[in-house]
């Protein structure tokens, strides 16, 4: 009984808490739902030409809703600062002339029900584009000077018109030397819009000069003289590539890098050392690179493969992987060609010539595992056409085939069995200058007309070039090209650029 009283007393004390006056504000109405429609997910507009005209439909479950509106816009991919939203309208309909520089922006539409205070915001991607943001770019040289032609593709992958010499047209100069290599990166840092941000940038390399341009305007961001923290004394660009969180630039056989995982201003650092003794080295222009893998270069001085990191002061040494048929270091070979065969698995193909016996040539597949290389060789016979190859073009990811040219003939070398096959003979008088595989694929409905998978065979004759775009079936070229691009000069490289093409679209390779 005593225990019962004790429990009752305790409960009575606790029950006093229930005397608290409830001042709650309860509402059993359904939460308000504001609906906005009529705003697309993405808009492509030309700066200073196109308007964004949108009349969204706004409704609410609140029958007494009274809306206010605002429109804003902000820049994406800004480095080192939070992007600011610029207000561009306060009415429901937007009729706004796009004045922003060409790049990615975000359009914001907000509405507020003044009756209830509830708001709703929707956003849309705004790609501000120019005539330079889509088309075939052809790097060509003429009389020891390099320039770029643009073939416009407004409705499909076949070009409809040509803008000649766009680099000199925009920048008032040509590059010295002969056309060599394009490199396209969407994460290159520049302040072309006023703040350091990822910039869609095209590197144009000749054998004596280089330039990186903003693809949206084709204006030069940096020339070779101001692309480095310290201007190189010798101008001899070899390659531009991206790998393992860094961009790499080979000039005069020396490696320079930009570590892309930290804030930077788009300038390449000093010459990386070969080793702790600063031993001399000279990198071949050929390389293997892919953004998610280690880069591999070939030191012609020591006939050795080397790798690198974006932050290192010294080149990284390579080692031999299990099962390799040739050492990665001091192999006594000249590298005649190397390129990326596939990115997953990460495999490269190289053609070597023995230094002691120059008649001995081998085709090798190179499979890296971290910094260890497994090199598997296939020795050429003296009758193989590949012995006389002048230009090379790997098919990337598709068939296991290396294309090459001998004189006016384009041949294929089956990397699986060494079989050679004549694919195309260029007309008399034409000289082959480059072979390039470009594959642009995806699942975007709007990009369907632009997707392609071409072997691009470039020739020159009488100071004029032709670039024939061949489809291929089972590694064999179609009998006739889909289209041919023509202009003045001799072609070094060809690339297709579109707003949705990124630095992952094409592998870094010759």
């Amino acid at each position, binding site marked *: 009984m005593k*225990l019962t*009283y*004790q429990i009752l*007393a*305790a409960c009575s*004390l*606790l029950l006093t808490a229930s005397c608290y006056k409830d001042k709650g504000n309860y509402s059993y109405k359904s939460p308000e739902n504001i609906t906005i429609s009529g705003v697309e997910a993405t808009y492509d507009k030309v700066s200073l030409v196109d308007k964004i005209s949108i009349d969204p439909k706004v409704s609410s479950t609140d029958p007494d809703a009274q809306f206010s509106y605002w429109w804003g816009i902000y820049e994406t991919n800004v480095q080192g600062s939070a992007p600011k939203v610029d207000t561009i309208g306060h009415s429901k309909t937007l009729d706004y002339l796009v004045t922003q520089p060409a790049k990615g922006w975000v359009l914001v539409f907000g509405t507020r029900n003044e009756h209830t205070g509830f708001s709703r915001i929707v956003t849309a991607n705004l790609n501000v584009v120019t005539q330079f943001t889509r088309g075939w770019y052809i790097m060509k040289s003429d009389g020891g000077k390099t320039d770029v032609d643009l073939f416009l593709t407004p409705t499909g992958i076949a070009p409809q018109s040509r803008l000649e010499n766009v680099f000199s047209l925009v920048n008032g100069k040509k590059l010295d030397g002969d056309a060599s290599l394009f490199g396209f990166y969407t994460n290159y840092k520049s302040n072309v819009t006023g703040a350091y941000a990822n910039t869609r940038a095209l590197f144009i390399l000749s054998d004596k000069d280089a330039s990186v341009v903003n693809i949206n305007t084709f204006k030069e961001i940096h020339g070779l003289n101001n692309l480095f*923290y*310290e201007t190189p004394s010798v101008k001899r660009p070899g390659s531009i590539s991206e790998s393992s969180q860094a961009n790499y630039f080979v000039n005069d056989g020396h490696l320079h890098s*930009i*570590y892309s995982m*930290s*804030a*930077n*201003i788009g*300038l390449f*650092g*000093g*010459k*990386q*050392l070969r080793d*702790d*003794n*600063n031993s001399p080295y000279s990198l071949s222009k050929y390389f293997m690179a892919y953004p998610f893998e280690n880069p591999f270069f070939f030191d012609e001085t020591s006939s050795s493969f080397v790798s690198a990191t974006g*932050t290192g*002061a010294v080149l990284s040494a390579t080692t031999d992987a299990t099962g390799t048929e040739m050492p990665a270091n001091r192999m006594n070979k000249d590298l005649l060609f190397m390129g990326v065969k596939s990115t997953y698995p990460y495999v490269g193909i190289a053609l070597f010539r023995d230094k002691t016996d120059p008649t001995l040539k081998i085709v090798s597949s190179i499979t890296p595992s971290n910094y260890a290389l497994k090199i598997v060789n296939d020795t050429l016979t003296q009758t193989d056409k590949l012995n006389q190859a002048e230009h090379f073009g790997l098919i990337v990811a598709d068939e296991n085939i290396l294309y090459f040219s001998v004189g006016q003939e384009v041949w294929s070398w089956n990397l699986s069995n060494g079989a050679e096959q004549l694919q195309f003979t260029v007309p008399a008088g034409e000289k082959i200058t480059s072979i390039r595989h470009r594959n642009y694929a995806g699942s975007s409905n709007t990009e369907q007309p632009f997707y392609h998978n071409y072997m691009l065979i470039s020739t020159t004759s009488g100071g004029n070039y032709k670039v024939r775009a061949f489809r291929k079936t089972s590694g064999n070229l179609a009998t006739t090209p889909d289209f041919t691009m023509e202009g003045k000069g001799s072609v070094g490289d060809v690339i297709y650029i579109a707003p949705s093409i990124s630095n992952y679209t094409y592998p870094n390779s010759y």
Partner: protein
Amino acid sequence: MKQILTVAMLTALLAACKKDQYYLYNDIARLQFGPTPDRIYTSSFEMADTMKPFTFFYEPATITQDTVFFDIYAIGGISGNDRPFTLEQVNIPGEANAVPGTHYKAFSDASLKDAYVIKAGQVHASVPVIVLRDASLKKGTVKLQIQVKANEQFQPGEIKKLWRRVEFTDMLSQPAAWNASAVQYYWGKYSQVKHSFMINQTGEKWDQEFLTFVNTDYALLSFWRLKLKTLLTDYNNAHPGAPLTDEMGETVVFP
């Protein structure tokens, strides 16, 4: 009965769950050093700038004195009147302590009578320490440790924030920006030989201003680290068997 009391006490303890009220500072005015005003609420900077190195090395010969500033804060709110505060030198046992009138202008110097004041309406002041370019500084470094001294306006604040130190010389000295992080990742252990090498080989001052500038940009840091490493390697290659060695007899290296 005992159980009733126990249960009642436990129940009463529930009242302890009431949110406590904040206590406002109602102590006397106190004074203590702190970081620059923009860092005052950043806990990791609480003890920043405790010691500042300084050198006349880069100054023209005509410069005979310079000023090192510290930041000091009054606790206890503002006042409608200017509030003078007092500093005193603390001699560090076993060290070369600065001599007032020789190495620095004494805090009691008549020219400084208005220098050590928390202005009306303020809680912060920059504390000037006037360092003098005595000839002895060409041969060594002296240390001036100062601390807050109680006066009519202020009592000392937190004990660990009552002092600051200037270490100054007329020789090359380790800039503050050549800090522990820079030692570990960029420039390595400080030595005057290394510092001179950096200046002579690059043409840059490698003083506090330049190092602070370089520190703002990782890519620039990496560039200079690689540049110095290359220059040192080339120097050592050009002097076989006699690598660059510092004043402590250690081989100079960059990380």
